[in-house]
């Protein structure tokens, strides 16, 4: 570890006068330790979700039964969705890297409510355990898809009850994290840390926090209603008792569409941190990027029914939601243009985090542009609920959030561990994962346009070629990701020690030792320049 470790124990080491051990982690109120708890849980859950996805692709390598029956397949894609969405993607960057770096980036000692913070992690663990329990108890693993659409979710005898309770609890974990970040950003900024000197990562977490606080309760209500429907037989969504199944879809998407922005906004924040550091130049259009995060959070809350163009809702509603969907495309486009312009006339150092950021921009652009096809009413009718949608959201969520998360891992790795991974292997793993990703998901656009519906255990022979190529891609992608995780794992133990600021960044987390000490700063810092002002900042070593 670095030379600083002798004076101040870093946050991995026991605080002076206390014992270490597992209890000092799982009951810790230190935002960095909580962030690490989240990070390890999320990586573990990501590997679970990855395995499920890998098995799904294996089953689909050829028509007919390959390795599992239809009931198992239906349970697997449901779990893949639930694990990836609720246990990986939604908490991912905010709960892990947000917790570790948001307080340090604004010069604070911790978040506003440290005990609430560890409580939210415990809720996350409880939810995750319940999700696992739902697999092995009751009459079989849930088989509804992660969207739990009624009436099917109300009539299936699989273990949906436990799964929706898990989702309910996970929702509270998310709400508490969002609440904590909003309050922290309002109350705990260091002197001189004005709103326009706030790192864009913090801005993105601020916008995300509002969505978490405002939209997640709707999810809680919705899954409680499923529970009431199943256990008490309320009939709210049952037409034979005067209910309406389409009402459920509205309630579900009022949360779950903004949730897409809970997923992607923090990743956009990470990209906004990485690009200027490696371009050695201030971010292009700071205010527009910060503002567009808020615009996305706001407009993104008004577009939920674009998931429902063929649900049977009125044509007028289709027109309104199609229009608003095109509106929300604009702030996303602004961000992409500003990122690319940040590279213009920089002095670019090509390091692994930058490769991940560039991969993010490319993959997210494809995801975003294909979103236009889905937002447009006439074309959506054809590709709705086909593999085109599967490809689109994997480009946005995996290509976007996923590569953003990997970028964050490679960017902040030296700060968290005080060591550097093997950069050459990191570059190779990024390239392999990128190539595998495109082989895996791009053919899905084509078979989707040809009419291949999603959530199909079996398929017509004319889609066989696309599915085969896609499964090949899943192997390449998995190889790239395993290489990446192995490289990071080796870096934790054997990497070359680094100092405080190996990339030459200008945000506050790079001013403290690596790994940071327990209380972050010896004295409250006074901020005198913006987060992307690199004059006089040099990478050490």
């Amino acid at each position: 570890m670095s030379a600083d470790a002798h004076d101040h124990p870093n946050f991995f080491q026991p605080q002076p006068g206390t014992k270490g051990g597992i209890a000092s982690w799982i009951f810790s109120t230190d935002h960095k330790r909580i962030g690490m708890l989240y990070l390890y849980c999320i990586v573990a859950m990501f590997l679970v979700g990855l395995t499920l996805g890998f098995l799904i692709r294996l089953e689909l390598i050829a028509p007919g039964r390959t390795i599992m029956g239809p009931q198992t397949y239906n349970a697997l894609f449901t779990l893949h969705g639930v694990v990836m969405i609720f246990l990986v993607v939604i908490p991912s960057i905010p709960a892990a890297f947000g917790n570790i770096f948001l307080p340090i980036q604004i010069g604070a000692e911790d978040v506003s409510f440290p005990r609430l913070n560890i409580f939210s992690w415990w809720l996350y663990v409880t939810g995750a355990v319940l999700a696992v329990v739902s697999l092995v108890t009751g009459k079989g693993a849930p088989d509804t898809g992660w969207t739990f659409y009624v009436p099917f979710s109300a009539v299936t005898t699989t273990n949906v009850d436990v799964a929706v309770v898990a989702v309910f609890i996970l929702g509270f974990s998310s709400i508490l994290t969002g609440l904590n970040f909003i309050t922290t950003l309002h109350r705990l900024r260091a002197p001189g840390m004005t709103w326009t000197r706030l790192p864009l990562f913090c801005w993105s977490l601020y916008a995300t926090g509002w969505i978490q606080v405002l939209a997640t309760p709707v999810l809680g209500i919705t899954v409680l209603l499923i529970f009431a429907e199943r256990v008490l037989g309320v009939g709210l969504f049952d037409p034979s008792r005067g209910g309406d199944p389409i009402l459920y879809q509205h309630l579900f998407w009022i949360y779950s569409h903004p949730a897409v922005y809970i997923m992607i906004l923090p990743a956009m924040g990470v990209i906004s941190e990485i690009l200027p550091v490696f371009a050695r130049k201030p971010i292009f259009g700071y205010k527009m990027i910060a503002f567009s995060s808020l615009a996305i959070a706001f407009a993104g809350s008004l577009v939920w029914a674009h998931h429902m163009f063929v649900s049977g809702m009125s044509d007028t509603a289709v027109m309104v939601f199609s229009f608003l969907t095109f509106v929300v495309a604009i702030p996303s486009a602004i961000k992409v243009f500003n990122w690319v312009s940040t590279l213009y006339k920089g002095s670019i150092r090509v390091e692994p985090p930058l490769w991940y950021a560039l991969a993010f921009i490319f993959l997210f652009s494809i995801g975003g542009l294909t979103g236009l096809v889905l937002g447009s009413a006439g074309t959506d009718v054809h590709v709705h609920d086909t593999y085109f949608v599967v490809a689109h959201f994997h480009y946005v969520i995996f290509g976007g959030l996923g590569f953003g998360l990997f970028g964050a891992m490679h960017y902040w790795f030296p700060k968290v561990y005080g060591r550097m991974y093997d950069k050459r292997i990191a570059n190779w793993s990024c390239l392999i994962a990128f190539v595998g990703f495109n082989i895996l998901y791009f053919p899905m656009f084509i078979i989707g346009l040809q009419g291949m519906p999603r959530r199909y255990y079996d398929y017509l022979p004319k889609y066989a070629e696309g599915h085969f190529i896609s499964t090949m891609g899943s192997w390449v992608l998995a190889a790239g990701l395993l290489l990446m995780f192995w490289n990071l794992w080796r870096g934790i133990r054997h990497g070359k020690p680094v100092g405080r600021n190996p990339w030459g960044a200008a945000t506050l987390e790079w001013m403290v030792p690596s790994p940071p000490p327990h209380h972050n700063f010896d004295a409250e810092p006074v901020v005198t320049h913006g987060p992307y002002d690199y004059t006089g900042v040099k990478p050490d070593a």
Partner: protein
Amino acid sequence: MYPQSLTPVQQVDLAFIIIFGFSVFVLLVITAAMLWFVWRYHESRHPVPAQFSGNVPAEIAWTVIPSIIVMGLFYYGWEGYKALRTVPEGAMEIKVTARMWSWVFEYPGGKRGSVLVAPVDTPVKLRMTSVDVLHSLYVPAFRIKMDTVPGMETYAWFKADRPGEYDLLCAEYCGLKHANMITTVKVVDKAAFDAWLASTDAPGGKGRALMDTYGCISCHSLDGTPGVGPTFKDLYGAEREVALPDGTKRKVFADEGYLRRAFTDPNGELVVGYDPIMPSTEGMVPNEDMEQMLAWLMHGNEVGREEGRRLMEAEGCISCHSTDGSIIAGPSLKGLWNAPTTVLRDGKEQQVTADEVYLRAKIANAPSLGTVKGYDPMMPPYEHLTPEQLGAMVEYIKSLGEHAH
């Protein structure tokens, strides 16, 4: 652009082409700029970075221009959608019922089937609903997709410009056999369609022919019109008030025993309101022929396992009930006949036998009979089936073998 002259398929494809064209252009520009900047402004070629942090005109430009373009994209998408939703006057209407995991199409005149047959060059409006969970009718070739929602009617329309066979798939996840909820749209020329619609699927059967031969039908109508004697329509199993020779009246069910007696001693239990004019068949009709007619009366005009098999395919029964002993979502039809069955009803277990009465009632209204132990309560009622059709289905089940004790 001449929207009026475009079919919905062309209108939608135009929107696809415009959006994809724009998207590919934007993606190429972004990617090329990104890679060019990384190469051109690499620290080895450009050691001193410029220190500007924005450019207001540029930012306004790439806010305003994309805003205008996406409004254009919205417009084309909406035009395509409108074309898909605007049904021409006088379109032929076909009712669609979706259920786990099959489709039933009902044509003008009442003909039903599991394949969608449609005439070429004719607008067809599909009026759709579902009897259980959400499904979605999707015909990629016509660019149409619409959810079928229980308790609600939705619609879609198409006009096929070429005869041929097109895939029709379920696009809304609906459980175990979602991926098998696939059928065909068979587009045929108009003359062939009319001929198909006019043809009857009912093969009749020997019993029906014998009824003609012996002249029964001249007194007993088949369609419910009153005649000299009671109609045969819906006779089997029906309740009738009869008069005994001593003048007392009582109610009977037209079960097998009653029908047998009615052949041999027609006036012993005379249906109230009719005259005792029917001759006994004793000695006039060979026993073998009487059995055929009896079977026809009991098991419907469309007696015969072939008709039962056709119906069970058309109604989607076999997508949940296999005919080879394997378990899908419900018990296999193979060996079901006379099988002892445990039924959960109102929380209690009951022992029943899968006999004719049970099977008829089960097919017609499954929810009222409780659930067979070990299976989920998901079978919808099939109340539109006539007694004849139920009889044919039971015949088919019988033909798949009796339960091995």
